[in-house]
């Protein structure tokens, strides 16, 4: 008979990752059978700076049965339909990577093939005009479509959120504590391991309190207090492909219309994010200090804000890469402790959530199985690896050569697998993305075509209909999008009517 030998779970670190883990464990595993303790110290700041997410966050919130509008209100959140990439192809260019589908898949192939044929025959509309999220975003409009009246003839509007990560952690903390998670305040000064197995047995706090556990979740951030500093799991360094290694972040006053999207503007030695929240705008310059100094990057950032700064800028350091083992012995790393990928495609919180989902799927009952741990580590590696390739592509296909940074990324060697993907895309107008990868055909197409990396051919199935039929189909799709767009409220109005926080600034 199996017995539950793993009863006491200790989460080390209380940032976004820590409290997301605590919330999920308390909801799914429950605190009747498990003791869940989260150790955090008020002395240690968290990294979260106004986070942008991707639609997968919905699954997480759904599992937690979180009320969406309450969550939006509590975290000063706004809605996000995608990312606008400015100056990536070249200076002055811009494209949008939307969530959701472009057009409608037809006859078994994606819309993009039909669009390419139509374009080849003289069609004049950009593919982004066939995507409702892009159209709504650029008109500053937003609505949810789950309660849309009439028959569901169009796909739903896909969205995610921008929120204040600090408030999100606080919200989940309340949620977790209500469900029985014990918060233990204190700075960890010592990690005790079993002298023979090396398993972690407890963490000792500055106060002398010792917190024992069967299973330790390392959410301690970049440093990886348990996974790296204690267990020496090792790190894959990817900074030769993704050279940015610093971010300077600063919030500023809201300015202009409330945008329902993140903006990522390529700069001289990296890129700058702009994340609109209800009460302020989050900004940051992600750069590589080999190409620009911290001081210069900071002053560039400060000079490019569209509202008055609301705090002192702060600099974060990181090395892009992934932990060689996210799970080692009785310690599993989640969040920045497991690896770091720049937030260009807003994947940080997603990776936290993916790790949590895998943790729940593979949660051990009576001991730690090496095969299971290997499987977990392999899967985590794939997650990081796929996203890494997608991020590299953004840089590699640039036409920019105006600074040393851009000359470097444009000319750097890239992973073989990415090269194969790009070659396939060039030849066929599709990636043939494996099912388990996060970024699907639509994302690749939006980014590659958006940056001018156009395919040379399209799928022969798109040739199977007549010119008139093709134009009519495309017109109807375009019409459905415009018709829906015409009925959509402004993003700011939608929030004001449904989920405004007390701090919402947009009058």
């Amino acid at each position, binding site marked *: 008979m199996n017995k539950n030998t793993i009863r006491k779970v200790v989460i080390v670190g209380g940032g976004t990752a820590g409290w997301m883990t605590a919330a999920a464990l308390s909801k799914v595993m429950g605190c009747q059978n498990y003791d869940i303790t989260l150790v955090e110290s008020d002395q240690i700041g968290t990294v979260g700076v106004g986070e942008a997410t991707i639609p997968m966050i919905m699954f997480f919130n759904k599992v937690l049965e979180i009320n969406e509008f309450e969550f939006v209100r509590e975290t000063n959140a706004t809605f996000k339909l995608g990312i606008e990439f400015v100056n990536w192809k070249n200076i002055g260019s811009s494209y949008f990577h939307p969530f959701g589908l472009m057009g409608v898949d037809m006859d078994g192939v994606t819309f993009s093939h039909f669009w390419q044929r139509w374009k080849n025959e003289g069609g004049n509309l950009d593919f982004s005009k066939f995507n409702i999220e892009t159209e709504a975003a650029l008109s500053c409009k937003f609505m949810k479509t789950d309660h849309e009246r009439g028959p569901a003839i169009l796909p739903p509007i896909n969205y995610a959120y921008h929120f204040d990560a600090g408030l999100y952690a606080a919200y989940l903390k309340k949620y977790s504590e209500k469900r029985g998670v014990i918060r233990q305040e204190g700075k960890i000064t010592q990690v005790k391991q079993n002298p023979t197995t090396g398993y972690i047995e407890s963490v000792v706090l500055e106060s002398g309190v010792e917190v024992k556990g069967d299973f330790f979740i390392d959410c301690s951030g970049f440093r990886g207090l348990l996974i790296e500093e204690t267990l020496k799991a090792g790190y894959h360094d990817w900074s030769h492909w993704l050279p940015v290694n610093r971010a300077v972040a600063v919030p500023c006053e809201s300015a202009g219309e409330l945008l329902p999207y993140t903006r990522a503007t390529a700069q001289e030695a990296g890129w700058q994010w702009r994340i609109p929240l209800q009460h302020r705008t989050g900004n940051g310059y992600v750069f590589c200090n080999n190409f620009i100094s911290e001081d210069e990057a900071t002053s560039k950032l400060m000079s490019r804000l569209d509202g008055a700064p609301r705090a002192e800028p702060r600099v974060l350091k990181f090395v892009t890469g992934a932990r060689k083992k996210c799970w080692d012995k009785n310690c599993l790393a989640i969040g920045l402790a497991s690896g770091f990928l720049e937030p260009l495609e807003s994947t940080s919180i997603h990776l936290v959530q993916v790790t949590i989902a895998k943790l729940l799927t593979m949660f051990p009952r009576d001991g730690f199985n090496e095969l299971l741990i290997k499987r977990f580590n392999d899967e985590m590696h794939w997650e990081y690896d796929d996203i890494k390739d997608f991020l590299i592509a953004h840089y590699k296909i640039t036409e920019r050569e105006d600074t040393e940074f851009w000359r470097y990324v444009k000319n750097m060697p890239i992973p073989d697998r990415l090269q194969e993907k790009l070659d396939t895309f060039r030849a066929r107008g599709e990636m043939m993305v494996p099912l388990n990868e996060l970024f699907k055909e639509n994302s690749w197409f939006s980014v590659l075509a958006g940056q001018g990396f156009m395919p040379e051919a399209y799928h022969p199935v798109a040739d199977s209909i007549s010119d008139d039929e093709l134009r009519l189909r495309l017109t109807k799709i375009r*019409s459905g999008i415009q018709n829906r767009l015409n009925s959509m409220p402004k993003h700011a109005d939608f929030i004001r009517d449904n989920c405004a926080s007390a701090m919402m600034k947009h009058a």
Partner: protein
Amino acid sequence: MNALKRIVVVGRDADGWITAFMLQKTIAAHKLDIELEFLELPSDVNDGDFFSVQPSHRLLHDMLGAKEQTLLRLSGGMYSFGQRYNNWFGNGSSYMQSFDRSGVDFNQVPFYHYWQKAANSGLKLPFEAFNVGAAAALAGRYVVFEQVGSTFSHASSGYQFEARAYIATIAKAAIAAGLKHRATGIHQVKQSDLGISALVLSDGSEVTADLFIDASGYEALLINQLASGAVESWASAFPVDRLIVASAPKLTPLPAFNQISAFKAGWVGIYPLLNKTTINIACSSKHGKTSDVLERVSASIGMKLFNPVETLFAANHRPNPWVKNCIALGSAATNLEPLDGTHLLSLHLGLSALRGLLPQYTDCAAEAAIFNRSMNKQMESVRDYLLARYKLNKRFGDAFWDAARAQTVPDTLAYRIDLFKSRGVIAQMEDDVFIPEDWLALFVGNQLSTSNLDALIDKIPDDELMSKFQQLLTYIKTEVEKMPLLQSYTEMTL
């Protein structure tokens, strides 16, 4: 008899170019041994001028071999699936008139009778609720049917164009097709017993021809010189003596119809174009100053008007547009305000008639008689159609409109109105330009009705009639929802 060997078209702008191009095409198509020359007069077109034309105008384009979409794109044009008439029965009133029929006949009795009966018993739906074209226009759709050969709709569209671009496009095509032309002025029109013997041009040279076409516009340079070619004023029936054309920004979402709104001293038309909106004010200088009118119109339609250009206008008609060897076409023959897409209509009708009557010999008295008779009837029927809107208005207390309502109308129009009032029947006359469904929509829209409905309508029980109505409405709604937005259609095709 002498064979007709040489035709000279004296003209400008749309009238001139279209006439010359059409003749060029006809001569080429039939390999006629006729020499054609186009003497092009300086343009009269103002900034912002536009053409609003009926669906039948596409036949003219067909004659010219012009591709609809290319022409629309090059001339900033747009489709309109109907015209909405606002405030013609007091401010706030409104109805949509499409280029389509309303309802279907049951037991060979026109749908109108059933609808009137239902309306009399309290049905609140307007007549055009049963009209696919009107429903599509209101929903901003481009009419395309899911199944080929829709059961009862033949909805189609009129067009609007930017005048200058439209003319330039046609001129370019005409020149490319080999049209012989030169830009000049007419110094003198020399006459003989045969009509015009020669034209003295501004450089002093003389031009002769067997047939002269006067497409010189309102000026009517040639026909005005001929004794029996005099013009007859229609200004007493049509009080509008000023046209003001202005521009406004593009409308979003793009409407699929024009709006014609009556106001104190005239009417204002709003015409969506590909890249902007054109505003046309037709008013009477006796009922207000231009500046006041502009201000009032701008406020009432809620749009800022740019570059207003005012021109004088007088409705008129030439009872003998073909005199001896001279034929007046377009504005040289007839001028009517563009209330119902009537820009270029006189030209189109004249060209169609001429194409069927192109003389073989220099003696063409027989052709002239047929042409004149037909053109008179046709233009009178168009006049009656526009006049009906004035006559049937219900804007009480506005001097402009009170006078329009009080006027005595021609017998032909009086007969049409009386017949409809007494029996719900649309009179059909020889050479009618507007078809019965147009007249019906106009009458019903203008709140004309009859109490003498067809006795056969009672054969259908009320509940059965209601269920037939419901079916129609459902069909229309479903069909329209499947149509693409005009905005999308034009984006994709123009």
